[in-house]
């Protein structure tokens, strides 16, 4: 395990290296080069949402039958990405996989920001977004309550729960490192900032005991949420009597796909961060190898979902289902189907080779392909299903408008802005957990005489 937790390192140096990024950011120029485009994208978000709220959802390309389109497919896409972070942090924490410690902080941050981006979509896509709170059960003079049979109501609770748990899990996890940053900060405003958010952490044994309890408890809550939230999101589609959606394979298929796209995004972030911030000794080839393996595994599970769906359709041979399959395979939006199949599964096969898995550039490119593929899959699931549903008479075409795309760019802006701020100002790798792993390694090594 020496390549994961370098026991030769001084504990202090680990913390220095990580916390120093927050306190004395190494390459400010590069950061600004990234942050300014991100701000421009954020501006696109503000403009797009303003236009959208001012004129109405008609600014998008939606129509009848395409009442749901890019907004919902992006919503599913962003939430799907998020799940990988939770899996890496919470599941591997519970399974005591120490190698996660180099990845979990930024993976969790990615989760949090992806969930924020994702949950913006259902809000802005409403016809009357100012009434979004009617989704919530709250006492009101109209004496109306949400309709609990609706998958959208489940969705509301699922996403809200997931958001809250993600925030808690991430924040609990970062508190000890915020305290380290507070203690090392020399400038007043850093001291105040980290001081406030460190919640008076002193590192006492009692603190650690409480921390450990709450962190593991939250992790235990978070893990099942990954499965339940994305299963629920699949219900958004699967509960409707629309051919191409109404399928029992959807929940596992969505969860696998979500984890797949999420691991791909984590791989990309890991490759970029270790290069940009010189963290090669913390995020090692071994980490890349493990991430690539997870991506491959989830990708294969997603491929199984594709296969199962096709098999079901052919085996059931319902004319309407066959028509939907035909629309996907050879219809005008066939590019999204074949694009998804190709991008998701063809480059992925390179990950069977170890040398490819530990090659950062190749891993980045393959992951990018998977992310694109999963985006196309979400798009395909919405568009190829709805543009030609039951009645030939309601068949229509769908073209996303410029405002669809500008909002998508804007939401990416929200993601990048938040993530860059996180990279710039917060400890982006869990220093104390790495140290813990190092210590355990050392103890074990001394015990067996291999040190």
């Amino acid at each position: 395990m020496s390549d994961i937790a370098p026991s030769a390192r001084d504990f202090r140096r680990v913390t220095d290296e990580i916390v120093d990024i927050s306190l004395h950011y190494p390459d400010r120029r590069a950061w600004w080069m990234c942050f300014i485009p991100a701000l421009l994208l954020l501006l696109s978000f503000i403009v797009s949402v303003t236009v959208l709220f001012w004129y109405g959802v008609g600014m998008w390309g939606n129509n009848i039958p395409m009442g749901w389109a890019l907004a919902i497919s992006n919503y599913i896409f962003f939430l799907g990405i998020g799940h990988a972070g939770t899996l890496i942090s919470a599941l591997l924490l519970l399974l005591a996989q120490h190698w996660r410690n180099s990845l979990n902080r930024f993976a969790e941050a990615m989760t949090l920001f992806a969930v924020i981006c994702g949950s913006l979509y259902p809000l802005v896509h409403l016809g009357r977004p100012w009434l979004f709170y009617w989704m919530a059960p709250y006492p009101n003079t109209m004496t109306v309550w949400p309709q609990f049979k609706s998958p959208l109501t489940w969705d509301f609770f699922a996403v809200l729960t997931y958001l809250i748990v993600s925030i808690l899990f991430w924040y609990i996890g970062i508190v000890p490192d915020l305290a380290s940053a507070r203690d090392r900060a020399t400038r007043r405003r850093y001291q105040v900032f980290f001081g406030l958010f460190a919640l008076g952490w002193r590192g006492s044994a009692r603190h650690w005991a409480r921390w450990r309890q709450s962190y593991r408890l939250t992790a235990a809550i978070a893990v099942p949420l990954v499965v339940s939230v994305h299963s629920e999101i699949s219900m958004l589609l699967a509960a409707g009597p629309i051919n191409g959606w109404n399928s029992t394979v959807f929940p596992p298929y969505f969860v696998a796909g979500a984890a797949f796209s999420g691991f791909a995004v984590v791989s990309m972030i890991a490759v970029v961060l270790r290069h940009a911030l010189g963290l090669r000794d913390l995020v090692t080839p071994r980490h890349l190898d493990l991430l690539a393996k997870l991506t491959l595994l989830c990708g294969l599970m997603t491929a199984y979902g594709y296969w199962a769906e096709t098999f079901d359709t052919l085996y059931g041979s319902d004319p309407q289902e066959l028509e939907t399959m035909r629309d996907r395979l050879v219809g005008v939006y066939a590019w999204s189907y074949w694009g998804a199949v190709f991008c998701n599964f063809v480059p992925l096969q390179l990950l069977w080779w170890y040398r490819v898995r530990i090659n950062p550039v190749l891993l980045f490119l393959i992951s990018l392909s998977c992310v694109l593929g999963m985006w196309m899959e979400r798009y395909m699931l919405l568009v190829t299903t709805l543009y030609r549903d039951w009645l030939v008479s309601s068949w229509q075409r769908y073209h996303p408008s410029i405002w669809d795309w500008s909002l998508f760019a804007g939401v990416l802006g929200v993601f990048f802005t938040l993530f860059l701020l996180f990279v710039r100002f917060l400890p982006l790798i869990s220093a104390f957990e790495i140290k813990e792993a190092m210590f355990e390694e050392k103890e074990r090594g001394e015990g067996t005489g291999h040190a």
Partner: protein
Amino acid sequence: MEREQAGPPSFNRRSLLQAMAASLALAAANGRRAEADERALPYVNAPEYVVPGKPKWYATSVRFAGYLQPVLGKSIAGRPVKLEGNDQHPATGGATDLFMQAALLGLYDPDRSQVPLHLGQPATWAAFDTDVFRRTAEIDRTQGQGFRLLTGAVSSPTLLRQIGDMQKRWPGMRWHVTEPINEDERLEATGRVFGRPLQMLPDFSAPAAIVSLDDDFLGPGPRQAMQARAWSKRQPRIFMAEPTPSATGTRAGERLIVPSARVQMLAQAIALGVGVTGVAAADLTAPEKKWVDDAVGALGAGNGLVTLGALYDPALHALVLLINERLGSFGKALRFTDPILAAPPDGKDSLAVLVDDMKAGRVTTLLILEAEPLQATPAALDFRTALEKVAFSVHGGLYADATANACHWHLPLQHELESWTDGRAPDGTAAIVQPLIRPFLNVRSSHVVLDRWLGGTASDHDLVQASWHTGWQEALLAGFVADSAPAAVTPTVRDRTVPLPQVPSSDGLVVEVRPDATQWDGRYVHNSWLQETPKPLIQATWGNVILVSPALARERRMENGDELSLRFGNRELLGAAWIMPGQEPHTLTIGVPDSFGFLDSWRQPGVRLEKTGKTRVIASTQPMQDMGEFDYVRTVESGEEAAAHPKDDVSFYPPRKWDSPSWGMSIDLDRCIGCNACSVACMAENNVPVVGAELVAHGRQMHWLRIDHYTHGEANAPRHHFQPVPCMQCEQAPCEMGCPVNAAVHSPDGLNLQVYNRCIGTRTCSAYCPYKVRRFNWFEYTGQDPDSIRAMRNPDVTVRSRGVMEKCTYCIQRISGARIAAKIAGRPIQDGEVVTACQQACPTQAIVFGDITDPNSAVSKRKASPRNYSLLEEANTRPRTTYLARVRK
């Protein structure tokens, strides 16, 4: 579609709104003037005092192509809000058509001309009166030489009396008529055969078999409501021969696709078949021969009728008259009366004579009333040049259009819903038109214009009343003058010679000109309800297309939307291609509005066709119309055969017990002729907004009730089906399950409700709806409507704002009205008490609505038919709207 020189205005919602705003500003600038008090009589017993919110019904009529269409006008708080058919009327029995339904918007149209224009500048009526006063001195001096009156077709006794008065005072004055789509050929044929022109009045309820030679008697036109109602009574077997699909063709058991040039051969063969003498033998192809043999066989069984399209040559009409005489249909299936529309002195050459005189400088004063000769005349006449030679020209009409701008004066006229006039229904029954509202613009009626010209000072009420010495009150109450239809004439054939014209060669491409299903001859270009109504067989809105056959499209590699250039001589017509299954291979079809300025006749061989290489966006509500392997519209071999698949109503849940009443609807697909009267009636009743071509092309039309058109089978000779699709009001509604905020809920009486003010616009209901009948307010469609459009709205129906979903409610406001009335009277709601707007409008009574828990209700009886089936029953939504399958005849 645009012509090369002058394109008709292209509308999208934005430009429409700008135009509306502009005309409104004009109205405000000119102020409003109350007209003299009128004495309109309500149809039902007048209440002692007006109850706010309680509608009053007036029996009146709207005009269409010279005829009156009887209506009952619903007026709430003094504002007409809906027109319905007059069920007491002998001709229509309550049937309506889309033009009648859309006449309401014509009244409130913010595009209407609101002030007299002199040389294009706003002027006053006083200035006009002074000008005319000076002019009449001149006319007096010349005894009317050089004074001409041009009108549309006229059936109004009052107008005819006034024209007579003019001619008495000025013997040299002449009256001309322009009515682009007319029955002149039929009248000429009767004149030839019987010695005097007679009106043919076929009774489509009488015959056992109808052979239609390219006569779309169920299609659009002033007789549609009347004829469709009559046909629907027995739905006799139809043999149709036509070059381009029509409403009648879709109902035909045997449809023969032939070039129009072959119609004469078919008529000759039928004539020979039934034993008319003196007819040359016909040379037929095998399919034609089979069709003729079958048709002759059916006619031979007795009680048959042969009809011929109004535009064919009079000699051919004469032959068809002889066939009908031979069949013994005179007096039974084919009755005759004296002409219902007044004939101008020069008959069908009336307009040509006028134009000749104008060009020769013989016309010094021209008064055009309710006609648009500049837009709606064949190009060869060149009316514009002729008009420039007239010293004093006046145009009176609802709109300040091209003709108005080319005349010295334009006079804004009253809409018939705000004026007194009279006229005759298509069966000849006379009626008095009473206003539903006082004119709210500075407008005059045509009668008043003529009266002032003659120096009179009478009101339109007095002018009309002067024509009706007795029965005034009864006529106003009933909406028609009882027994006023001209008596049936039993003519004797005087001339049996059949000098048939040379059959024109059918080589090359032939352009057929057909009345536009939603624009007629182009006169409804301002009516946005009609503009947005899809043409039934094409499903295109806002503008027309050029129909090409699938074979020609394959040959020339054309696709829907390709811009085509049609060239005839040095004239060109540009338009979008639409591939029409069932179109004769070498026939192109264009609408009458597009033919003006391009062609001089109704069929034109030798037209050159080219693709320009550009494409046009067709604002189609249904881009795909091939039903493929699906069974949305089912067909059974006989009325006894079951249409529904054997049901296995297996469910985990116990069957739900529905209390009475519980509402349901049945739609007979065999009766539906796709006329769209229901769809426009629904727009009027339910305040359905119009969105414009751009948004329709995006798939954002708002129609609550759409008429799907499907073709089934081989593209060269498919079967055509119409399927009206309102909300299915599913018992197990996916929309209700999907809505997170309880906006889609079920009512105890079986309705699938949409609560607008609860809706937050998640659009889940629409995503889950297998029928996609839900409509979404993508933008604020209603908030920017001009005042006059707001005044038109039905106050019983919520106006929806941006961001909410809406859909058919089964006219819940009418159900509530009936429930309240029944509750007050302490009785249950009777069967037939709730009539939905679409049901009322349907000329063929294809739609029946009522309580499905009552086994004796009309709807339950319909649903008990073996032909009854549910659309997409495999979706297990248990729709309350069900269909009766078509019967293969």
